[in-house]
């Protein structure tokens, strides 16, 4: 019987190594996402400022990050910083910096649009009930903002997880890199390894991102008011 090559996934510690690689990808995206949320919330609040200059500067930041491909940012931080500033980041560190830089901008924009979408009457109803500014924000504005935010937050998270596959290009050994190693190592014994390994990686990304994307769709439906 012709062998399909699927056994390449289970030879030795191959599958475990792939999972470990996946963990590296996940760790980068989760740390970066966490930092992005923490930094993006204040950034979003700043973006709603009435001050023109502050708004202009934050706009430039956001647009810069959006226009520049993440790969270019990664190279800039990883190679650029080492060559011109003399700071040597590990690949993982550079990745976290870049993804946080990107995520903060995107998160900020999400927070901004969620905040401005809350009708001014929500604030006024709270005030008319005798609430203080802090109470209005704590009981009314923040819960509503979070609700509006959750679906797009999930979306951003899946985008970030997928984009971590770029870090292979700055030498981080994550799931795609491990996959490549396995393929290279079994080039002669299993010529079809690429199909199986990349297929497995595809399924792994899918298994992680799909629940988030489903949760996002579900939340969107559920929280519609």
């Amino acid at each position, binding site marked *: 019987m012709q062998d399909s090559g699927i056994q390449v996934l289970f030879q030795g510690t191959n599958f475990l190594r792939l999972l470990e690689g996946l963990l590296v990808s996940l760790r980068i995206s989760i740390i970066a996402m966490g930092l992005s949320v923490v930094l993006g919330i204040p950034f979003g609040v700043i973006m709603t400022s009435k001050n023109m200059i502050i708004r202009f500067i934050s706009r430039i930041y956001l647009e810069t990050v959006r226009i520049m491909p993440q790969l270019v940012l990664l190279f800039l931080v990883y190679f650029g910083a080492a060559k011109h500033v003399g700071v040597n980041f590990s690949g993982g560190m550079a990745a976290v910096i870049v993804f946080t830089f990107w995520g903060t901008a995107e998160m900020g924009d999400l927070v901004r649009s969620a905040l401005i979408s809350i*009708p001014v*009457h*929500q604030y*006024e*109803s709270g*005030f*008319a*009930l*005798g*609430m*203080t500014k802090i*109470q209005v924000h704590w*009981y*009314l504005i923040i*819960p*509503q903002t979070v*609700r509006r935010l959750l679906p797009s937050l999930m979306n951003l998270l899946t985008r970030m997880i997928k984009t971590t596959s770029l870090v292979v290009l700055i030498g981080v050994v994550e799931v795609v890199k491990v996959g490549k190693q396995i393929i290279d190592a079994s080039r002669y014994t299993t010529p079809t390894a690429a199909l199986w390994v990349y297929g497995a990686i595809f399924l792994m990304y899918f298994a992680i991102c799909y629940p988030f994307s489903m949760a996002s769709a579900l939340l969107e439906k559920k929280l*519609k*008011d």
Partner: protein
Amino acid sequence: MKQEQILKVEQLVKSYDKNKPVLKDISFCLKKGEVVVIVGPSGCGKSTFLRCINMLEPIDSGTIYFKDQVIRREEKNVHEIRQKIGMVFQSYDLFPHKNIIGNILLAPLKVQKRTKKEVEFEAEVLLDRVGLLDKKEAYPRQLSGGQKQRVAIVRSLMMHPEILLLDEITAALDPEMVREVLQVVLELAKEGNTMVIVTHEMEFAKAVADRVLFMDEGVIVEESTPQEFFHSPKTERAKQFLNTFHYEAI
């Protein structure tokens, strides 16, 4: 018998745009238990006036007294005064993330720090009175406009306000829902609640008011009893305004 004066406004001036004052020198007095209805063409400043009383808008000049105490938007205790002045808006503005009972209980629990047992009982009594006890657990999006507005009134009443400001509360409602809301307001008036009401429902104004203020272009043009105002308005401007509600057969 001289009734206790609860609110006094002296020479209130307010403008959004520097050269165009919306309110020009408004003076006004409200006694406890009185129901004053403010009518007038759109843009005459009646809603702005209510918003100024509740300090939702900064004012240019003038003084507002709540029981002999000067109230100002800039003061630290502004939220304490607002607890005593309830306000219901045209767009009801229930909190979409909370169910009906949650909407009603939020301020009594968090602002007045009353006990849950006490306020819950009171809320149920009030909800029952406006015919919405069975909607207690529902969310605002599941309610009709008229129902939402009745909840908004209950939410405001829960704070035991000494004055209730109603800002065109039926203007966004379908005609057949107007009555269910105004019926509630009529009962509140009967019970002796002090209210300032801005409305375009003239028949309702006639029924509920102790006193009618007719405003136009930022001034109080006419002030009289509903009888006088609706049957023999003194000013030409008021006559014109009232005429817009009449249709001649063709």
